[in-house]
């Protein structure tokens, strides 16, 4: 035993304690910053309120429209993103040969590395016009009169575009985790199904996917966490509506999410109460994200106890 052994152990335990301290600091800072708004509006009042008025003397803040905006845009992202991610993961792990798999997996991982501000910038100047011309206008012309979901005149900067771009952003994240999970499935599972005469899809359906059921659910929820917390991309393309207007009435409504409103107004906050209201939005977002993440991690842990799959 060298003398330094004891000291070194204290140093590394110190580093581990520091990470726990950071987590505590996060909760303390967000809680401390939002005390003012919670004591004025009440926690329930703030969460269910729909006003957003920063004018001095008539200040009133409510988070409900942005909670709805967050859930709707992430919901659209999940509805598109999850099936596509599963398709990609199945292709990479079950269908593609090694020669295609390696470069394709590499490309999918590159997509996961593109910063979200670049997705947002591209969506604002390129993808938005594709959405208007090829998807939103045709949908509006066909169903606008009959189905309220497509009623508003499309402008490209709306909750639907935000949801689709969020989907594009989370697809590489979900599909790379699911691909890793599927490749851990023992090949004896597949062989057993094949020997019963199952086709490749039947093998995937009855022997591969169920084996990783809760792991796949966990990966999906990690993607949901990313969609809910994403800021810059959403800020650029969701249209940034305020107050009651931010509650989407159709797919083509402008809206606002918790994080995009924080990013938009943080530097121009008119008063301490306004700032506290923005941090209060952060507190709501933090609770949402934490619940989702803890749940997802528990699911993924249960699946891959020996080598937990990364969620970078």
């Amino acid at each position: 035993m060298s003398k330094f052994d004891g000291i070194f152990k204290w140093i590394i335990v110190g580093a581990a304690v520091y990470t726990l301290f950071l987590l505590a600091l996060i909760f303390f800072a967000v809680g401390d910053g939002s005390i003012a708004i919670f004591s004025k509006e009440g926690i329930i009042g703030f969460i269910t309120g729909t006003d957003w008025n920063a004018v001095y003397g008539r200040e009133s803040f409510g988070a409900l429209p942005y909670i709805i905006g967050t859930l709707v845009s992430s919901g659209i992202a999940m509805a598109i993103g999850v099936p596509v991610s599963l398709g990609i993961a199945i292709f990479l792990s079950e269908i593609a040969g090694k020669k295609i798999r390696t470069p394709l997996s590499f490309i999918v991982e590159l997509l996961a590395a593109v910063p979200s501000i670049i997705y947002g910038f591209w969506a604002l100047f390129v993808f938005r016009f594709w959405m208007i011309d090829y998807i939103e206008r045709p949908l509006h012309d066909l169903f606008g009169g009959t189905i309220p979901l497509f009623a508003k005149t499309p402008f490209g900067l709306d909750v639907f575009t935000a949801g689709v771009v969020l989907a594009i952003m989370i697809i590489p994240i979900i599909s790379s985790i699911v691909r890793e999970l599927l490749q851990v499935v023992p090949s004896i599972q597949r062989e057993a199904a094949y020997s019963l005469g199952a086709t490749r899809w039947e093998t995937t359906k009855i022997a591969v996917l169920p084996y990783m059921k809760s792991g796949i659910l966990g990966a999906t929820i990690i993607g949901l966490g990313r969609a809910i917390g994403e800021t810059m991309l959403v800020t650029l393309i969701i249209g940034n509506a305020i107050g009651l207007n931010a509650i989407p009435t159709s797919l083509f409504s402008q809206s606002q999410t918790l994080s995009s409103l924080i990013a938009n107004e943080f530097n121009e906050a008119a008063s301490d109460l306004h700032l506290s209201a923005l941090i209060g939005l952060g507190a709501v977002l933090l609770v949402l994200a934490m619940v989702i993440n803890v749940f997802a991690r528990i699911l993924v842990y249960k699946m891959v106890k020996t080598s937990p799959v990364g969620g970078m």
Partner: protein
Amino acid sequence: MPKDKGNQDRKQDKGNQIPNYVNTQKTILTMMEKKYKKRDYINKSVTIISIACVIFAIIPLTSILFEVVKNGISAISLEFLTERPGAIGSGKGGIGPAIQGTLIVVGLGSLMAIPVGVLTGVYLSEYASGNNKFAFGVRFFNDVLTGLPSIIVGIVGYIAIVLVIGSFSVIAGAFSLSLIMIPLVTRITEETLKVVPNSIREAAHALGIPKWRISLFIVLKTALSGVLTGIVLSIARIAGETAPLIMTILGTSLFFTSFTGPVDALPLRIWRLASQPYESANAQGWGAALILILIVLGLNIGLRLLSRKNIASKH
């Protein structure tokens, strides 16, 4: 699919052997054939659908790379890379302060995160035994930290540092980015160290080397290239973060002056340029996006090529 084909052949063979005298069997076989055709049809459609999913994911990547290079390359000049931004809407000047600021904030953030992350990873892999509750907690909360929305990290930097020292500052930005980076580095260090074979540790123990030296100079050194890869990937990740910088470094059109003053950063500059209603500003935004994507994807691609080479030379 060789297996499916075999199946089909077998059924046809059977059909040929007993064609005439067992009529019922024949009908059963044709029914099976029909059912198999349906199953085969479903199998093939799933393959096509999954290929369509892959194409759906590749189109945006192609379009992003194409547009960023096409629109960005005309914006780039020596002036653009080194000068301060000109008057708003003039289209003059450049993104010099943003490039400098990104390097400073990301560099300082990495300095704050790497030692903590690596040491925590060493603790989790080398010192925490199987059923250690504290280690489980550290690991679990690190994973949960990974899923923290980046805007929250910015709020924390604002309250814990900007409000305390009274100014938007490089330090606050770097601290916020370190919050994103620490869990990434911790995880990659732990994962990589766990792959180092136990025989190496045992051999070192048998020689009487103290444990801290084994952990740092033998185990960590063996796994160094993996750990470095993870560190560089997480540097690429924080270099693209925007949201936390809004409330910590604020953004400015001036070059760096002090660690306790505001500074600019590339993602922040892209956001500001995108929000301005001038075409010249948007063109500059494409240029800044090209520089950022070159940094981030360059780090990613370079590392992967390098690590593939390493693996190839080891075998």
